[in-house]
């Protein structure tokens, strides 16, 4: 059997492989004694998953039609269907790529932060989490999505609990409680939907909700379903004010886990919310019947500001970035919220139906951009932690002098976070603001830029600490991070710049997805 025929035979099954490979990898890793071997398995699996995701997205973009994979060849209402369209393909690739890129980094970092005994366990949970996230995104079934959500969440609790700090356990515990609440709310929501429509398939629910809504007796149930599902998923993606589990979880998790979670976990949840709002409930319900856009916009803006302010005053770099993540989630959700609002009379000559929605584009682009930038930032801190065992400001003072390459990458990603032109962050901000202008909410434009000004302050503050303060005792002793750490870090940092200058990989795809999602609105 030649390689070619093998690939041809495998190709139709790529969607399920996306889940099976990491699951199998996790299983293998569990039985390993050596952390290094487990790491190697994870590395191979991650890269494989990323390649599969890339292949899938390419296929969709070239054919333009979604890939539908029926598990066991059962038809939709009965069987579970995996569906890869532009949106899910995009998010899959983002998550898989982030997971793969940081694997080289993980070995040394994990070896330093986690007890030898627990290392294979870490990698197993890591792959399990990856499988769960992939599943959330790829599935076309509401309950299946719940299952994957729980898989990834459970793995996450373990990942967090593996953190060296004694508070890691508390953080994991809190997240466990909150995650369970979120999952419960979500399951109540889809339970209601099942009662109303008799199906769990996203597309089928969508097609059957219309009559349900028209029926005054069932109308309230639809609204309740949406409310529960919305709040449940929002909790997972740390929408303000349900974000409070996040700072501690990110702060006390092992460095690589933080970077991984910050880049991927919330993104999968965001995907699920978008899927629910735009595909399942559909534009007419989520937007015209319910105040979802208003709620989203208000909460997002609150997140952008309140969390950013907290980031300004933080003295723990990881925690600062955690707050920043909450704010950045606000950006993404603001884009989603703006996408829900009616667009004013076309400001450009092109006809509205063919122009992608700027708000949604911004939200989706920022999923990728934020994942990259935040992963880079956390990885840089991971490298610092690896060298000096702390990320408190007082300890990392002046570390730019001893770890210049690490901190330079940190600085570049930081610029991206501020939305400096020439970085990926600017592109997100640009489309987000355009989305606000499209809807006529000029004031939001100013809120967006004002909040990025706050990010200037917190990034500026840490920059000053690491570059201009006199080195602390620990920082003065530090050495530059090893190459295995620098390479992933710099790949992400350079991506931050590259994606700010060449947006075909992000904006074009996101715009396609936005067109598919929101096309009907205009």
């Amino acid at each position, binding site marked *: 059997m030649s390689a070619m025929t093998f690939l041809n035979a495998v190709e139709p099954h790529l969607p399920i492989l996306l889940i099976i490979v990491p699951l199998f990898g996790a299983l293998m890793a569990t039985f390993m004694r050596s952390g290094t071997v487990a790491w190697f398995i994870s590395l191979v699996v991650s890269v494989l998953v990323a390649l599969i995701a890339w292949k899938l997205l390419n296929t969709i973009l070239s054919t333009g039609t979604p890939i539908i994979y029926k598990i066991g060849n059962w038809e939709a209402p009965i069987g579970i269907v995996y569906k890869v369209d532009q949106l899910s393909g995009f998010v899959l690739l983002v998550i898989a790529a982030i997971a793969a890129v940081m694997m080289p980094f993980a070995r040394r970092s994990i070896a330093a932060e986690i007890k030898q005994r627990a290392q294979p366990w870490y990698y197993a949970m890591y792959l399990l989490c990856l499988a769960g996230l992939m599943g959330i995104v790829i599935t076309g079934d509401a309950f299946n999505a719940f299952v994957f959500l729980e898989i990834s969440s459970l793995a996450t609790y373990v990942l967090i609990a593996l953190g060296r700090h004694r508070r890691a356990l508390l953080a994991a515990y*809190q997240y466990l409680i*909150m995650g369970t609440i979120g999952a419960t709310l979500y399951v109540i929501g889809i339970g209601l939907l099942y009662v109303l429509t008799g199906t769990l398939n996203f597309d089928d629910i969508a097609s059957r909700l219309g009559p349900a809504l028209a029926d005054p007796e069932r109308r309230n149930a639809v609204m309740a379903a949406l409310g529960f599902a919305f709040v449940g998923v*929002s909790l997972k993606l740390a929408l303000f*004010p*349900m974000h409070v589990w996040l700072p501690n979880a990110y702060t006390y998790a092992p460095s690589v886990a933080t970077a991984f979670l910050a880049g991927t976990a919330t993104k999968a949840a965001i995907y699920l919310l978008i899927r629910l709002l735009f595909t399942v409930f559909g534009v007419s319900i989520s937007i015209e019947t319910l*105040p979802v856009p208003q709620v989203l916009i208000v909460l997002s803006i609150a997140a952008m500001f309140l969390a950013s*302010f907290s980031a*300004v*005053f933080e003295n723990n770099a990881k925690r600062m970035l955690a707050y920043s993540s909450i704010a950045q989630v606000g950006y993404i959700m603001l884009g989603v919220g703006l996408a829900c609002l009616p667009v004013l009379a076309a400001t450009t000559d092109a006809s509205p139906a063919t122009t992608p929605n700027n708000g949604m584009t911004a939200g989706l682009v920022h999923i990728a951009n934020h994942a990259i930038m935040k992963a880079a930032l956390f990885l840089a801190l991971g490298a610092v932690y690896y060298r000096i065992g702390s990320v408190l400001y007082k300890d990392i003072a002046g570390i730019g002098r001893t770890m210049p390459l690490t901190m330079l990458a940190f600085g570049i990603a930081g610029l991206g976070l501020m939305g400096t032109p020439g970085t990926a962050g600017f592109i997100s901000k640009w489309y987000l603001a355009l989305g606000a202008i499209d809807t006529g909410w000029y004031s939001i434009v100013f809120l967006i830029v004002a909040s990025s000004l706050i990010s200037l302050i917190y990034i500026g503050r840490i920059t000053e600490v690491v570059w201009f303060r006199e080195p602390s005792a620990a920082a003065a002793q530090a050495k530059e991070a090893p190459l295995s750490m620098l390479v992933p870090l710099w790949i992400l940092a350079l991506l931050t710049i590259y994606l700010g200058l060449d947006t075909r990989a992000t904006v074009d795809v996101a715009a396609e997805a936005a067109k598919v999602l929101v096309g009907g609105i205009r």
Partner: protein
Amino acid sequence: MTNELNPGLIVILGALLVPFLPGRVLRGAFMLMIPIAAFAYLRTLPMGDFGQMELMGLQLQTLRIDKLSTVFGTIFLIATLLGVIYALHLGDWVQHTAGLIYAGSAIGAVFAGDFVTLFFFWELTAISSVFLIWASGTANALSAGLRYLVIQVGSGVILLAGVLMHYRATGTLTFGAMSTETLPGTLILIAFGIKCAFPLLHNWLANAYPAATVTGTVILSVFTTKLAVYTLARGYAGTEILIPIGVTMALFTVIYALLENDLRRVLAYSLIGQLGLMVAGIGIGSDLAINGAVAHAACGILYFALLFMAIGAVLHRTGTAHASKLGGLAKSMPLTATFAVIGALAAAAVPFFAGFISKALILSAAMKAGHFWAWAGLLAAGAAVVIHTAIKVPYFAFFAKAQGEPGTEAPANMLLAMGLTAALCIGLGVYPEALYSMLPREVKYQPYTTEHIITQLQLVCFAALAFVLALRFGLFPATTRATLLDSDWFYRVPGRHLAMIANRFRSFTWEVVADGIVKGASKTYHALYHHHGPDGLFGRTWPTGMMAFWTTVTLGAVVILSYL
């Protein structure tokens, strides 16, 4: 190109070489050569417009030779030569260079055919001349020089504004006859008026000239004001408003000249008075009057230079020029005293001295044009000159009872300069045709008629009699070291207070605003820190129950909102 170079530039270029020449002798010889060379060059130039060039899109005419410019150029060059001789003893290259650049730019301005070139040299006179004041090195000289500079450059910028408007309105830059009907014409007149020390715009002169160095004052007395007279003669001949202005200048300065104690300041005021005569002449505007103004400018240059030289020599030797500290120097400085007297006689317009042949033209012109009051005013001012300049200056310096140390005779170069100037004063008085032939307008005038001689002598002698009698009966105002209020009071007292109050107000508001900003920022900071700091509501770790509570609240809110 070579015959299209403005003679002023020759002087300026020469001046720029001066600092690099070693040794006082070589430097002195070179400096003497500069005005002579420029003069020789000027003689070779035919009448006409030359030096056309385009600079920054502007059509310039950098050299205009006609009778008006030639007579001023010639007398300026002569004065330059005299000034150089007078300053030969100095070792200070700064003053030499500045003085020559100053002279060169005044000469250049005279030969400028367009407003841009004029403006160029106009500003250059201001910048270069201020060094002659600063070179005194006293605190007073520094501040007086600064005020002088601001006012001079102020004249320049007003000129610039006027020129720009003129250019925009007419599209031409040629400097010709102007009208005061228009805003640009008025602005340019004001600019000229500042340099010409029009009433209320005059105080820079009285402040700066006495503050300058000994040699500096001599040079200063020549150029700035006479350049202004030239520009007025070119641009505003026959502008009636100039007549009252001129008469006012001639009359009000008498008071100050009578009262001032500092003899250089006396001369400064007197200079303004004589400028008034010229301004009035230009205002009258007849051929005779213009000729008179030009001739009087030429003569005025000579005899004021001579007087400033003499008083300068006194200052040089005794260290003071205050009437109350001088006296009796005729014995120790006989030659200087003699020259001073010659200058005084010329100033008093005694027949056969320079002033006589020029002043007569203006008075006759006023008479012929029927300007009775102007004529009477100028006549009165002319009589007063006899007292405050011709008698008071030499008297208190050389003949009154000695109040201070006796000096020694002036250095040879000063004496030479004074001697030459004195000779010119007498020469022109005796042979007026030398000057008359150069005057711009074609008018025949004979100053030496019996009637004219007699009447002028009457005027002079009775004025002298009045002085003698006033002195005798104690009516002559005492010369006291004091400050006389003048128009500079307006900006030096209320103006300065106003500026200080405004500045205090500015810094006060500044502080209030800055304070407000700082306080506001710090309040915001603390409020934010309170809520967002590590221990704040949004920064600390919440208990799990609270997290769950807020989740519930959000759920409730969303659901309730859905039903609304």
